[in-house]
């Protein structure tokens, strides 16, 4: 609140609050990054091969589908909404891609991309135009796409026939034309491109900025005439595209279309976005930071196998590390903090 009796003091107070907020964000980012660096050092100390080129390639490959999904869902989370259909869209995409290589060849990738656009658009329209809460809308479409994946695949995991391996062998490429990629897999480069495009869209366009505004206060955003429905539809569409890209990654990586392959990645993608600092309540977060959340989760999962944590203990250690990372990343000093 401004203070008319002491305008300078009020102004300085606002500046101070802004600086404090920026400082808080920077600390949060630093802690996320520091958590990853600490884990990298620990796991490498325990097994020097952890940061060897083969495992770096593994880590970056593992990160790729989750990153594509997380960037999409991060936009939906910025709205204060949720997308539970990503895993099913990814499964359906993987199955479709495997089946479509035969009749469509390289165009199968485009067909799956269009499917992602359609699936995301459907979620967006259900939520924005038909006013169905995002939880219910995406829970319903989750069931629809999961069943579709089963029906299309005949309930069986589909193996990509060796005659079609030519369409997916680029996933193992070690160079981009004359440019050597080193330990960086092509999948990671695509996921990185998705993240950058989503970030630019969210931070530089009016619709992207509206996503953040309506997540912070939808009523206010509506009153000042922002394009609420458009922002919601675009966010869900981009989430659908991210999920379809993840499905493509699963299919080319496994050389198969497994109708349940994305099932378990819904919550991992949401948790990764949250770990990257995207508030589940909406209105706060940064797309580029999502990579830190995804990186943290992947490093923990990969590292536990590299240093041979007992299978019975893995889930406990994973849960504890994620809990500790979330706790250290989140800021609870705000007086108006409400935890639900």
């Amino acid at each position, binding site marked *: 609140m401004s203070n008319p009796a002491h305008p300078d003091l009020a102004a300085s107070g606002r500046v101070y609050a802004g600086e404090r907020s920026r400082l808080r964000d920077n600390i949060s980012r630093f802690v996320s990054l520091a958590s990853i660096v600490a884990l990298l050092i620990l796991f490498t100390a325990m097994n020097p091969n952890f940061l060897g080129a083969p495992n770096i*390639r593994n880590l970056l490959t593992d990160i790729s589908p989750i990153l594509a999904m997380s960037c999409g869902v991060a936009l939906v989370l910025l709205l204060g909404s949720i997308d539970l259909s990503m895993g099913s869209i990814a499964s359906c995409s993987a199955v479709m891609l495997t089946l479509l290589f035969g009749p469509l060849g390289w165009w199968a990738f485009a067909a799956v991309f269009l499917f992602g656009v359609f699936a995301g658009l459907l979620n967006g329209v259900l939520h924005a135009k038909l006013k169905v809460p995002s939880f219910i809308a995406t829970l319903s479409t989750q069931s629809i796409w999961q069943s579709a994946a089963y029906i299309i695949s005949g309930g069986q995991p589909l193996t*990509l026939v060796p005659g079609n391996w030519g369409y997916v062998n680029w996933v193992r490429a070690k160079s981009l034309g004359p440019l050597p990629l080193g330990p960086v897999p092509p999948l990671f480069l695509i996921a990185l491109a998705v993240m950058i495009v989503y970030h630019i869209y969210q931070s530089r366009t009016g619709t992207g900025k509206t996503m953040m505004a309506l997540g912070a206060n939808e009523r206010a955003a509506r009153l000042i005439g922002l394009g609420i429905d458009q922002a919601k539809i675009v966010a869900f569409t981009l989430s659908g595209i991210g999920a379809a890209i993840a499905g493509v990654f699963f299919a080319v990586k496994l050389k198969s*279309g497994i109708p349940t392959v994305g099932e378990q990645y819904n919550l991992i993608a949401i948790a990764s976005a949250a770990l990257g600092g995207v508030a589940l309540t909406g209105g706060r977060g940064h797309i580029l930071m999502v990579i830190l959340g995804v990186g943290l989760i992947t490093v923990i999962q990969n590292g*536990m196998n590299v240093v041979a944590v007992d299978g019975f203990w893995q889930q406990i250690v994973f849960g504890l590390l994620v809990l*500790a990372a979330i706790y250290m990343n989140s800021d609870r000093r705000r007086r108006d903090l409400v935890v639900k």
Partner: protein
Amino acid sequence: MRKLFSAFLLAAFAATMLTAAAGEKLTIAVSIRSMSSEYHMQYVAGAEAFLKTLPPGTAEIQVLPCESNDDKQINDIKALLASRGKNVILFVDPNNAPNVTAIAEACEDAEVYWVNAWNTPEGITPFLYEYWVHHQSCDGVRQGYDIAVNLFNSFKTPGKGKILVMEGMLANTANADRMKGLRQALAEYPGIEVLDDQAGDWDTKKALNITETWLARYNDIDGIWCASDGMALGIIQALKAKGLNGKVKATGVDGVMDAIDAVGAGDLVCTIANNGWMQGGYGVAYAYAAYTGKISTKTMPARERMFYTNGFLVNAETLPRYRKEFIENVPVYDYNNLEFPIARAMEVE
């Protein structure tokens, strides 16, 4: 509070440190669907039994549960291969058949010997790879035949009676094999009449519903040939509701504990335990033999690279022996005799 969480974090790291690999031991990895699966943990127990035959301190077991997540199974295996180099051998029960291709390529790149059980995609065989030592599976035809013969001989007039057939999933390989075994037995027992044949899709509840309908429709049933224990447990429930358990004979396959107990209670004529101890133990024994150079995938006979294993038929007669050998104790095998687990070679087209 933050200090408390930091302490938790340190405790987690400490647990990690305590269980971490030390030195240059050989890692015997067992990649399974879930540690909550009784059958999959038999693989681990089998691998541990093999480990005990090696000089102490030279090798260790690492279990990689994928929790039914195909991508996790591949990621975990790749992480392991990256961290251990060639100092690892691997037994895998692929969560789904298509995983085999990715695992085979990863092991080929890492030059790591591995074996798998049950699943492999059509046309993808160990003969295409140097480091894929063998593919093994239970002999479904033999299982279908054995439970059928046991069922037919349990009738009041052995070899004469009316039966119902509960199949698994129609397109499933295991179901097709077990049905083939049933048809072989039916050809040998002309006194058996099949009243109906339904697909229970491996589902307990669906099997229960089908059986309830059968019991309303037929009143002269002698037995139900059933392709799995999961469905057999549904059948038993339906029979119990009508007071017909033990009177209408039933079978199963897989050897889950509830089915073993049902054999003991007289509700099930027989089941076949797939013997994960033997599959896991001999699986890693083969991979170890290739790792040490005792055998070579280039010169191994084809029957050792793709073969069926026998299960253990559990009926009222063999139950005490099964309990003693497999429940009260972990079975002991001679892992130098690599021929032992081979029931018959698989036909390769």
